[in-house]
């Protein structure tokens, strides 16, 4: 349907953004707009749209000694082209290259993807596997929380209406870190995830020292699979082989940590089957990468 009219604001600084948020109600913050505009075309009503695209400080990829920072209006394409990301968070490149179509990646943003907070968001599982945090700011201050605490439910975040997501903060992984992202969609490209898994592993002395196993599209938000993570932590790499008992147990645990629904893309049972398979693949691939 036709996009309805609204008041359009184009602030140039974060302070202006805060001002707008403080003085206006029913505001939609727009980064790439690839989600927001579709929602509005399908009937979502917004009185005010605040475009973040002229706020240059929100469009930066930067680093310090411990962290990589991604501004919320950084597009998927910018991530794909960024030497910093390539160096420290290579799996994010692999992940975002599986999102949408090339055109969508040229305008769509990680910030938008995280804030739309669809359960099937593909960037969130990988970011969570890296233990990412987010910075949320407003005229009254800045707070920093885990990404897992941002995403409350399908399409619901903990950002209040006077706040804006100002950074995604990703700890630079230690050399003992390895990761992998697996997405299962119904066609080869431009498809919505039926299920996805991001695995992050910290390996010491041929053993898993710490781990994240994060599943997307199988619960109201991407979720960390705690019981599976407990099983894999301290596991010996030698026990994590194709078809090994432990690997199967971890896959089972991952699936039972999820809470998928039946929808047009697949039944809950099928999703669990998929999760088992791709969890195993993600774990084996990340170990493989590590060994190379």
């Amino acid at each position, binding site marked *: 349907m036709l996009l309805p009219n609204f008041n359009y604001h184009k602030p140039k600084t974060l302070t202006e953004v805060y001002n707008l948020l403080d003085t206006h109600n029913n505001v939609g913050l727009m980064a790439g707009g690839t989600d927001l505009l579709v929602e509005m075309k399908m009937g979502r009503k917004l009185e005010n749209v605040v475009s973040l695209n002229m706020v240059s400080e929100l469009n930066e990829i930067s680093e310090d000694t411990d962290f990589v920072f991604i501004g919320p209006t950084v597009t998927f394409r910018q991530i794909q082209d960024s030497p910093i990301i390539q160096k420290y968070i290579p799996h994010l490149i692999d992940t975002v290259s599986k999102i949408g*179509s*090339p055109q969508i990646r*040229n305008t769509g943003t990680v910030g938008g993807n995280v804030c739309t907070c669809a359960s099937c968001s593909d960037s969130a599982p990988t970011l969570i596997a890296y233990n990412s945090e987010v910075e949320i700011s407003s005229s009254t201050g800045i707070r920093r929380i885990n990404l897992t605490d941002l995403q409350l439910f399908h399409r619901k975040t903990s950002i209040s209406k006077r706040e804006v997501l100002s950074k995604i903060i990703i700890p630079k992984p230690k050399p003992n870190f390895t990761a992998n992202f697996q997405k299962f969609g119904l066609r080869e490209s431009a498809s919505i995830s039926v299920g996805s898994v991001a695995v992050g592993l910290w390996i010491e002395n041929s053993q898993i020292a710490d781990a994240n196993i994060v599943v997307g599209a199988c619960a109201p938000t991407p979720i960390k699979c705690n019981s599976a993570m407990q099983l894999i932590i301290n596991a010996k790499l030698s026990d994590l082989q194709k078809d090994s008992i432990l690997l199967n147990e971890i896959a089972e645990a991952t699936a039972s940590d999820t809470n998928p629904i039946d929808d047009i893309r697949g039944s809950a049972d099928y999703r669990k089957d998929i999760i088992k398979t791709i969890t195993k693949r993600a774990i084996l691939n990340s170990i493989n990468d590590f060994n190379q």
Partner: protein
Amino acid sequence: MKQIVNINVNGLDYEVAIRTGATLLDLLRDELKLTGTKRGCDHGDCGACTVLMNGKAVNSCLVLALEADGQKIETIEGVAKGEELHAIQQAFVEKGAIQCGFCTPGMIMRVKSLLNDNPEPTLDDLKTGLSGNLCRCTGYVKIFEAVETAVDYLKGKPRKEIEYQPQKSAIDLSVVGKRLPKLDAPDKATGRAIYTDDISFPNMLFGKTLLSPHAHAKILSINTEKAKALPGVKHIITGADVPDITYGTSPARYDENILAKDKVRYVGDVIAAVAAVDEETCYKALKLIEIEYEILPAVFDPFEAMAEGAPRLFEDKYPNNINTHVDHHFGDIDKGFAEADHIREERFVGNRTYQSPLEPHCAIAEWDRHGRVTLHTSTQVVHYVHHQLSRILDIPLGDIRVIMTNVGGGFGAKAATNILEVLSIFLAKKTGQAVKMRFSREEMYLYGRGRHKQFIDLKIGVKKDGEITAVKQKVVLEGGAYSSFGVVTTYYAGSMLATLYKFPNYKYDGYRVNTNLPPSGAFRGHGVPHPRFAFESLLDMIAKDLNLDPVEIRLKNAMEPNYHTCNDLDINSCELTSCIESVREKSGWKDKKGKLPYGRGIGIGCGGFVSGAGYPIYRSQFPHSNAIIKVQEDGSKVVLFIGDADIGQGSDTVLAQAAAEALGISFDRISVVSADSDLTPIGFGAYSSRVTLMGGNASKMAGEQVRDKLLVKASQMMGIEKEKISVKNNRFFITTNPETFISWEQVATEYFSESGPLIGAGHYSPPKGLGGTYKGAAVGTSPAYSFSASVCEVEVDFETGKVKVLNFWDAHDCGTAINPLNVEGQVDGAAVMGMSETLFENEVFDKSGRMLNPDLHNYLIATSADTPEINSTIVDSFEPAGPYGAKEVGEGASLPILGAIANAIEDAVGVRIKELPITPEKILKAIKEKNHNY
């Protein structure tokens, strides 16, 4: 709420005041009138609206116009340098990468940005890189070829002439049988081709429809007062304001009101229409229309609908909601099964799929002061629209002009008169202004007319050696709320099974059942793909039971030339056997079948279709195709006027080739005017794969008439009997001494100077008396039948069930291919569409009959990334009924695909999926069940 945008488009600066809700696409199309950029979905799913923003490809439908302030935009209009095409455009034209052309501007823009980033892409780069640009026509194969060629051109490499072996029947021909680029391709490559939505008239209004939110309800009252009061609203009509006439597709089942009269029968049924100064106002007005409904119980399952006591959609007709029942028995079914050594019966279930042409339907109506109305519309069949409008409006055909603009794909979705065509005329009449109406992508799905979902019980009996002795088929078709093409669909679902394999005994029971869902209609392969899927699957199952090779069992039963089928259809040419042998050879069948590792598999399927229906949809004695050829007074050019419609399949080009061959002129001397009821003689349009054969015969005949007139003249001029003169390549020459000639234009000029206008007329009617005398015998008759075979190789991920189709090797008997390049394009497109339907596509509804996936985000169709390698062969064949021996290919080519894939999957992982679409979930479930049983 307008704001100013400063924007640079194709190097020009613009300052535009625009409403805040406008997208960049709206700005380009509506404000700057740069209509080359297309609106296919408006939701970022199709890529038709792709433009470059600061060098990057973006979907302009998902960029706010205000966000483009200060940016540099490049659109298709800026790609060519004047008349000189860009290398990419040139390659798209030459390689046949353009069919309907609706995806083309976006595709070319995307290719341009891709080559900027990556000047030498691999095939895989292209497959993923172009996956945001959907194309429903080409199957992407020729697009990849075009990009590869463009890469060469950009590097300065010269054009490679490709070698190909002409068919035997085309060796002596000079225009027919040539791989010629489509006449309309350059316009489509540059964004110059005009589609209906690209047209706007001065003072034009927009119209929108109010759709039922309920699947089944009585309308108690409608109040339009508030809506009428809205500023900008010009007129509103409801059921009370339109004539009490029903319409539809087949006269026996005209059952649709123009607007709902007393009740609505599906979510999407049309209740009212509003005309206003813009679409925004229309939408606002629609919200203000107040309707009181009494909700009625609804029924969505055809079996429930047939049960006693089920809610009835029509009180006065279709008892038990059975809209059409067919009961056919040929030969002796009991005797046939008694003779069989092996009998197997299975249930197969099809899927509800939608044609999903890239261009949404659009119509613009305008009345003049003399009481004539002109309708520009995106239709496949000018004539049926014309006829139907004359009935509805009760005015003579001569007072209605229907013009088909370029059509962005149809596949059956645009084969009948649609509601936009009718309502825009009513609104235009009431307001005295031109009215444009167009569907959104969602409205296309809701309006429906896609493929009937079929429930098929198929039973086949064979001898030990595989010879088929009897076939019994019962089909229940989910019809949706209205008849549309459904009567014909029901007959086709039965009749066409008998054209591919020889069997003497056949029983067919068909039930088309009304349900409270969008009406089902005609979709490529009309009614036949699901029964064909069932048949090809069951044949493989039987071959397995009997330890026969699936290829052998097909060869054993394959149709042969000059055969009279058990249901009284007459097959002329038939090269099914050589099609099967060809694909067996090319695919390496013998080394692969049953021998590939677990997870890999190979399968075969066959198919075929009519080359045009033997009888019209409503009874008339008019020839089915008619052509006029008019020669310029100096003989320099010729125009072919033809009523048949080029909806992207390339018929204008093919018909021009047939005419040029007959005329003896080269292809560059002919142009075509088609599908305009004022200018072109009646033609039944583009459905049932009829245009090549029927339009081709009419065009050829018109050409021959001109040629014969000129032969007389040439004979006088050359002083030799006309029997001794030949005409070819723009020359009249002495057959035995080709160097003695006079030019075509000399003869034509002479003729014109003496006798006035040089014109020729041609017409084609199918032979009289086709088919048997039983009820429904007309459906399935045709002057000629096509045949195809396809072998498919797949890889199945047995841990997820996901299928990747790797290859198709197919072979086609389409008679003489008038344009082999076009045939390949049809075949590629049919294969990929067939694959997409088999693996991905399905319309899903919730419990209240609301469609859950009415968009290209959730209703998945194949992207470039899903495209397998396709290797097609056109076998030698000659059809006596066709022009220069030609027959159809566009629909028949899709028919082998469904079964071939199902059979390949069975070969790969040992499970037989009998329900479409064959999703990973169904495969995985079957694998698990199978492992469990061991």
